[in-house]
């Protein structure tokens, strides 16, 4: 707040000095300050000193650090960023899903083509089936696993007396499994990198689900060793692998816990 007037003495001068120096003083106060400075040497010296300090302050030279500080800055800005940004995660997942998607599309196309070929062949009573695309069903029974024990007792395994039929060879395994395995290992690596960002409870649920899925995969693989031509087992294995990919993909996209 500006003072409208100033008492014409040293105290009044001192009180008005700050406003005067800041340019906030009214014309009347400004005139009074300047008039008092002309009449009083000590107040004139004070005014000159303060004006000199202000002038000299604005002309102070630049200072220089005692050392080059760039190396310390460079180290800090070069440090790896720990949090995985959402776009990069999405990019990784998008990239990793291209190949399985292409494999799945190829599988569908092959299946459709072969089915069409077989259907047409049976309709024309042609018994010749290309050996590359199909294989005859084998007689080895499916060994029931823990998961399938109950259904195995209710519905007996196919017997050799069943009419001969044809079905797809294990193309789904040949095409899909290595691709899915590769995607699983990539996604697993991403999830491992993100472990520290995720809530421990989420990690626990994730691991528990993974154990169940891994168990199903192991059982399917063990059964396929004994019955390599089983389409059912191959399908089960692929489904389990796909579930694992889905779970891992979801985990890679989970938001970091605070």
């Amino acid at each position, binding site marked *: 707040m500006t003072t409208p007037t100033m008492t014409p003495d040293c105290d009044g001068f001192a009180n008005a000095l700050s406003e005067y120096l800041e340019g906030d003083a009214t014309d009347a106060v400004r005139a009074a300050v300047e008039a008092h400075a002309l009449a009083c040497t000590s107040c004139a010296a004070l005014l000159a000193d303060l004006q000199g300090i202000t002038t000299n302050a604005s002309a102070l030279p630049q200072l220089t650090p005692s050392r080059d500080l760039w190396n*310390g800055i460079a180290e800090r800005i070069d440090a790896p960023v720990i949090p995985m940004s959402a776009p990069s995660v999405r990019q990784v997942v998008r990239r990793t899903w291209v190949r399985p998607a292409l494999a799945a599309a190829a599988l569908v196309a092959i299946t459709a083509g072969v089915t069409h070929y077989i259907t047409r062949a049976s309709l024309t009573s042609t018994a010749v089936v290309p050996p590359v695309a199909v294989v005859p069903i084998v007689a080895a029974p499916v060994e029931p696993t823990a998961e399938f024990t109950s259904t195995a007792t209710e519905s007996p395994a196919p017997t050799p007396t069943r009419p001969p039929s044809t079905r797809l060879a294990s193309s789904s395994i040949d095409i899909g499994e290595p691709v899915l395995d590769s995607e699983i290992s990539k996604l697993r690596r991403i999830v491992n990198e993100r472990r520290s960002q995720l809530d421990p409870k989420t990690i626990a649920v994730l691991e528990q689900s993974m154990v169940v899925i891994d168990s199903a995969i192991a059982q399917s693989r063990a059964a396929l060793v004994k019955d390599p031509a089983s389409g059912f087992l191959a399908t089960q294995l692929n489904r389990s692998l796909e579930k694992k990919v889905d779970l891992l993909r979801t985990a890679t996209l989970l938001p970091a816990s605070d």
Partner: protein
Amino acid sequence: MAAVAISEPVMTAPAYTADPDVALAAAGDRRAFERLYRVHTNRVFTLCARMVADRTRAEELTQDVFVRAWEKLHLFRGESAFGTWLHRLTVNVVLNDRKTEGRQRSRFEDDEDGDGIDGLAARPTTPGDRMDLEMAVNKLPKGARRVFTLHDVEGYKHEEIAEMLGVTTGATKAQLHRARMLLREALSK
């Protein structure tokens, strides 16, 4: 003094800058950013040193400022000169620096309540040796030193300083007058 709540200086005007190194650095070019560092480091260091009156800490803060600038450069849209943006960022970094607060609390025990420039009595002097302005500024109490540095040395207006410090313009004017009077006293000894 009231608690200071300072936000980053964010420029939201259309992207424009006269300095190509600013645009390059904002796009992640580290060499361009190093060139900006070379151009601006002394000015940043000078402001830090005068604000905190501690050259070692000022060097650490200068590094903090440039690291922060690297992180925030994408927010700079060229509304003002890069130097102005960086200067304001420097003030924010210094004012938010807790470490300096702690150190200075121990250096200036009677800081804001003190009547004079700290350390004058302990300073060895020889006959005819007058304290220069730089040294006298360093000896000012923290509040007075900050306002004096920002206003008389750096040319900020009281309104800007008040906003940065979270105080009224009346308070910054009072601190400035106090600082000038203390400096006169110190320089005339």
